[in-house]
């Protein structure tokens, strides 16, 4: 019997040819479907592709009609592309890797409407969790209140209620802690009560007064042993009391520390009372955050989101990484990827050039050029950082300029990303100033962002600067103070708002500065310093009245507890020392015999 069925070679060959032909015919739709599935998973919203044309002989892929839904607005496309032409390096395809030498994009448009919703049922749970984290951080960022209402009328100090102040509560807490500690320590001292032992020791000492070997006779040894046992008992008791005294010192020190924290609580109560009665701080560093923190948070949140998403899409390092397996009738499982420095990354785009034109009459209308170099889904494999630059080649109107340089260096596990963006002549944010009610429209100006991420820390600055600011009284009230503010603000033409962000990427510190705050501060100080000082004095006096006594009580209670316990302990120690000295003297006398 033959092992091989030679006559099956031709049917097998035919079958393989048939399969190859089928694969070739279905390749375009497979690529189209693959791009839609992978794109949808990455974006977290529907990605549609009208046509994919794979030309293996030419090493080219042409994509037509790519629509990428905006995950935050499913009836709008984040962007759409008319045509993408990619030159493929065919060799990496044998390793199931995609290496695009060059890519050219035509007909890129943003924010186009969709005919149907592009929402998907469970969009990107990881991205959602990240958004929630950033929202949580923004809620924790303190936004001080700024209100001038307290200066318009009389200062109602009766509104400051002792139950709303933290100092009296803290002081009462210290007093009750001191009382509890005193009770506990006194109980321990009672348990150690040395009086019976001291009395018996004194009796023994008196009994042996003037005694000698001769007078004691056979009782000599017993008397010496009794003396030694009593001295030993006294020593043990003294050690117990010493230990208790040490514990008392530690406890009193803790109570005193709490007492010394009370002035801080008093300062916090004063600030809270000022807020309650709406007496504003006139310091510019206090006013800026009150006016612009909301705006800063609104703008900085997406920046932080994408700074962290960049790490997810383009992870650093060479550790094996896991992705969900392909969708099929059988269980999908997971695909585990094993990148190495000597191979190809899953997706590499060596060079991409995108020319795009924004139509219309708006400030953003015009032609732009985007360059992307060394984009790689695994930069540690590709070995070079991703570089992106965007520039405006032709403005629709006016001398506007856009310049963006970004470097995403994920080659090593220590991420080093940087973004520098400068846009001039474009509309800047408009904001209604909280607590004042005036509406500020920055108009067209300079929008400049620089952000650096090194490892898990971030440092950046966002500056909006305009010399064409327009003001509207909007919901601003009337009266002397508001009129003063309006005169100050409406005279301002040059405005700078500077937002700083620094620290850990998961919870950076935000700082806000603006010349608007400096002008408000200067103006209020000039006109209202006397009123503010008088109002502050009244508030301070009222807070002081409510907190001074509790603070004094707490301080004296701690001192009293210390004196009581330590005094009794000292008395015990003195008696113990005295009687032990007597007994030791008796022992020495007997020893001489």
């Amino acid at each position, binding site marked *: 019997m033959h092992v091989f069925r030679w006559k099956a070679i031709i049917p097998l060959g035919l079958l393989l040819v048939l399969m190859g032909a089928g694969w070739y015919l279905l390749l375009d739709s497979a690529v189209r479907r693959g791009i839609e599935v992978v794109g949808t998973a990455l974006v977290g919203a529907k990605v549609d592709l009208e046509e994919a044309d794979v030309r293996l002989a030419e090493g080219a892929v042409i994509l037509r009609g790519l629509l990428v839904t905006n995950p935050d607005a499913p009836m709008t496309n984040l962007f759409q592309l008319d045509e993408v032409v990619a030159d493929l390096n065919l060799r990496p395809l044998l390793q199931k890797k995609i290496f695009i030498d060059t890519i050219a994009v035509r007909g890129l448009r943003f924010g186009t409407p969709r005919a149907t919703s592009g929402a998907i049922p469970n969009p990107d749970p990881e991205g959602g969790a990240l958004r929630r984290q950033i929202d949580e951080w923004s809620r924790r960022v303190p936004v001080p209140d700024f209100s001038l209402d307290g200066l318009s009328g009389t200062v109602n100090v009766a509104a400051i209620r002792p139950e709303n102040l933290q100092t009296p509560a803290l002081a009462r807490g210290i007093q009750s802690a001191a009382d509890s500690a005193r009770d506990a320590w006194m109980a321990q001292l009672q348990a150690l009560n040395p009086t019976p032992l001291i009395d018996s020791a004194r009796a023994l000492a008196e009994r042996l007064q003037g005694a000698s070997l001769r007078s004691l006779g056979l009782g000599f040894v017993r008397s010496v042993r009794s003396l030694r046992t009593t001295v030993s008992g006294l020593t043990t008791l003294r050690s117990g009391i010493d230990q208790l005294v040490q514990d008392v010192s530690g406890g009193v020190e803790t109570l005193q520390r709490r007492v010394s924290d009370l002035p801080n609580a008093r300062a916090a109560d004063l600030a809270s009372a000022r807020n309650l009665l709406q007496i504003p701080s006139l310091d510019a560093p206090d006013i800026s955050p009150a006016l612009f923190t909301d705006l800063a948070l609104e703008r900085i949140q997406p920046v932080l989101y994408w700074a962290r998403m960049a790490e997810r899409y383009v992870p650093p390092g060479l550790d094996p990484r896991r992705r969900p397996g392909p969708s099929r009738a*059988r269980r999908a499982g*997971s695909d*585990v990827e094993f990148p190495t420095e000597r191979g190809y990354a899953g997706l590499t785009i060596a060079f991409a050039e995108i020319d795009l034109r924004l139509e219309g009459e708006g400030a953003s209308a015009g032609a732009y050029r985007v360059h992307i170099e060394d984009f790689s889904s695994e930069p540690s494999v590709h070995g070079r950082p991703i570089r992106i630059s965007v520039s405006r080649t032709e403005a629709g109107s006016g001398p506007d300029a856009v310049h963006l340089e970004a470097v995403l260096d994920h080659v090593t596990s220590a991420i080093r990303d940087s973004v520098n963006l400068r846009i001039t002549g474009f509309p800047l944010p408009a904001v209604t100033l909280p607590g004042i009610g005036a509406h500020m429209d920055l108009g067209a100006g300079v929008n400049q962002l620089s952000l650096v991420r090194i490892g898990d820390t971030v440092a950046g600055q966002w500056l909006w600067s305009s010399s064409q600011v327009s003001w509207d009284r909007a919901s601003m009230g009337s009266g002397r103070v508001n009129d003063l503010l309006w005169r100050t603000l409406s005279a301002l033409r040059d405005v700078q708002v500077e937002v700083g962000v620094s620290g850990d990427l998961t919870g950076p510190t935000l700082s806000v500065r603006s010349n608007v705050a400096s002008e408000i501060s200067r103006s209020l100080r000039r006109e209202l310093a006397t009123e503010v000082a008088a109002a502050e004095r009244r508030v301070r006096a009222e807070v002081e009245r409510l907190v001074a006594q509790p603070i004094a009580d707490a301080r004296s209670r701690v001192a009293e507890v210390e004196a009581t316990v330590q005094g009794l302990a000292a008395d015990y120690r003195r008696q113990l020392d005295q009687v032990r000295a007597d007994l030791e003297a008796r022992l020495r006398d007997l020893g001489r015999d």
Partner: protein
Amino acid sequence: MLLLRLLQKLVKTLNSDGTPGQVALGIAMGSALGLTPLVNLHNLLILGAVFLLNVSFPAAMLGWIAFAPIGFLFDPWFDAIGNALLADATGLVPLWTMLYNVPVIPLSNYNNTVVLGSLVGWVVLFAPIFFVARLGVAWYRTHVLPRLLNTRIFRFIRASKLYNFYQLFQTD
């Protein structure tokens, strides 16, 4: 019609065509198509081997059909095996990394937990499937087939028009 011919061939294979070893080998090889996700490079190789080697082709088809539901049923275990080999066995990472960067091998989807787990499962089960199938075919031919041929129903079928119709599709 193709299905009927396949069925006919299958009956013939079980009854007389080929040795029990050829039939059992066909079933064991065909079981790979059922146990592992079908559209994968290793299944193309196995199909080629079934064509080229002197094993029973209908038996391979029988193996495929019989083991496909078992494949679905065993998927959680295959996933766990693949996971243990690809993700947990750190000693194997250099091997997987090397294979991941060798041309053609990544096209086999070996780095998918279900594909690798089921392939390993099939390799482990190959010998038991082969031996059990060989014993089963031999036992069927000596004990079941003679009795079956003598049953009233079988005699009725053989005498009926249905059997004549069946004979029409006999190739030899």
